[in-house]
């Protein structure tokens, strides 16, 4: 899942970036309202984390601009202001969830997964397709009660495919999920990891649509 994080404290921003990457997210980080607006305009994210107090404005401004323009990307507010009134204002402005500082990394990850899930209209935490289920919280898949361990990149690709079963995701769609802005894209990463996933889940689980991309195989 691709995330945008807006936070002006560089150490916290780095912590969120590194920590959430460890939790299986791909993170893009910005430190000002202006940068956040530009990023939201230019890219699509699965979820956005907004800090409230920033040097050039408030995360709430970013949020209201997003909602006014019809952007329904799930938003998690992070803030030092932790009073009920502030939480109400945040949620009423269109935020999907609210977390007061300081917080637990796992909780941030869980809440992000939850708001993304709700955005997709799913209630269950597990993603399931045929006999394979994917647990985003553990970054692992299982088949017939046997756990299949996945690397971070394998997990990201499988999660993207399983969130929209039957939909074709192009190589660049998947690369977007894998890499943040600053990261250098290695040319054949997607192919390599699709190959590894097929060897773990069975060759027919993911099919290649020539010239278009990849999807989960629908027919038997």
């Amino acid at each position: 899942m691709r995330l945008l994080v807006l936070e002006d404290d560089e150490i916290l921003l780095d912590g969120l970036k590194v920590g959430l990457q460890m939790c299986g997210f791909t993170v893009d980080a910005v430190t000002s309202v202006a940068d956040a607006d530009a990023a939201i305009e230019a890219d699509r994210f699965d979820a956005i984390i907004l800090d409230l107090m920033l040097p050039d404005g408030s995360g709430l401004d970013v949020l209201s601009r997003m909602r006014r323009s019809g952007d329904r990307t799930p938003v998690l507010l992070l803030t030092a202001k932790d009073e009920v009134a502030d939480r109400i204002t945040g949620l009423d402005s269109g935020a999907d969830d609210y977390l007061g500082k300081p917080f637990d990394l796992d909780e941030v990850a869980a809440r992000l997964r939850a708001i993304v899930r709700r955005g997709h209209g799913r209630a269950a935490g597990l993603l399931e397709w045929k006999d394979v289920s994917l647990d985003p919280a553990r970054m692992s898949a299982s088949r017939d009660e046997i756990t299949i361990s996945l690397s971070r990149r394998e997990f990201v690709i499988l999660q993207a495919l399983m969130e929209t079963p039957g939909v074709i995701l192009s190589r660049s769609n998947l690369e977007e999920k894998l890499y943040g802005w600053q990261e250098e894209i290695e040319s054949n990463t997607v192919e390599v990891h699709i190959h590894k996933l097929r060897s773990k889940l069975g060759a027919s689980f993911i099919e290649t649509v020539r010239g278009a991309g990849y999807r989960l195989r629908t027919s038997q």
Partner: protein
Amino acid sequence: MNSIRIRLFVILLATTGAVWLLAAAWIYASTQAEVERVLDARLMEAARMVSSLITDHRIEPSAAVDAAIANAPPPPFKQADGSYSRQLSCQIWSLQGSLVSRSESAPETSLASHTDGFEETEIDGERWRVYAVVNPTLGVRVLVGDSLEIRDRLIGDVIKGLLVPGIVILPVLAVLIWVSVGRGLAPLTRIAEGLAGRSASELHPIDDGTVPREVRPVIRALNSLFGRVAEARDREQSFTAYAAHELKTPLAGLKTQAQIALRTDDSTIQREALSRISTSVDRTSRMVRQLIDLAAVDASQGAAKDEPVDVAVLVGEIASELETQLAANEVHVAMEHADRTPQPAVLEADRILLRLAIRNLLENAIQHSPKGAVVRCRVSESQSEVVVEILDQGPGIPVADEARVTERFFRGSKASGHGSGLGLSIVQMALDRLGGNLTFERGGTWFVARASFPI
């Protein structure tokens, strides 16, 4: 005497009493004069009457004496009781010195030895006022006198008549004054009760429309104090809340970095997280120190102790205090004396405030300097002010932000993300207390922060 009620009571009672006594003294004096005048006139009239009665020999001297005494005009304050009857005594003496006749009440010895007019004499311990008239036709001297004691008693009775009711009424008056003063002070009691019933957070002003005019200045002063206390309280509350919020962000950073360090197997990531934790602790402690500084500047209001401070020496001291920061940022401090005067620039000011202002300016310059750069400190003195200039080669403050940089927690719209946003508010507050002024200037690659202090 700390009670207004007792004070008013004593004053009112004393003045009422004094007025009363004064009135009594006045009445005493005027009564005495009046009694004297009336009784003297009677003496004179009685003496002349006796003299004229006996001149024609139509009446015996002794009968004349009795008639004169009986017909004399009544004394002005004659009482019903007999004590004032037979006051007059009359003697008729031949010019040779033998007693021709005397009234019943008169003593046998001569009332007086003079021949004409009034005289006061003393006979057998009794004081008399005597009028003498000489009848040259008969060769006799007529003396009419009355006892001064009777006069004194008369005046005494008049005064007693005034004082006795006064003394009887005094306790009643005292009670009335006491109660009235109490009633008069009731609005004060009401205000006091209203204030006593307030909780510590009820700092709304007292309605001065309903209080008596005399108390209004006190109420206004109180209300203005309430206003100031409420303001200080609000400032403190918002400051505490803000400070708590501001500390939460570095805490969140510390926590995430600590969690990363704990769960990663990658030693590079772990080392990086730990080094960030260390950096964050340094920054957070700086922020905490600044919060304490800010509180110190806040608290210094009105408590400033001025002493002569050699500004250049102080800047040097501060620079050496910041040695670790300088080393960490690879920045050097160069001290410059603008005008090579041998005289040191000495300022009469509060050393602590001055130190806080300069230290934060210098720290700011160090924080924003590129690695390996020089921060120049220039101290100069003119007729009217001492100027401390700190020059750095950092990005400076955008003109658009200049007005806001001294606001608490304002970090600038292009902030690098590691300041607390407190440094310049400390500088500004300290300068406000010191009567100084903070300005910024750009000159080539140098950004100048200039603090000027009036001498």
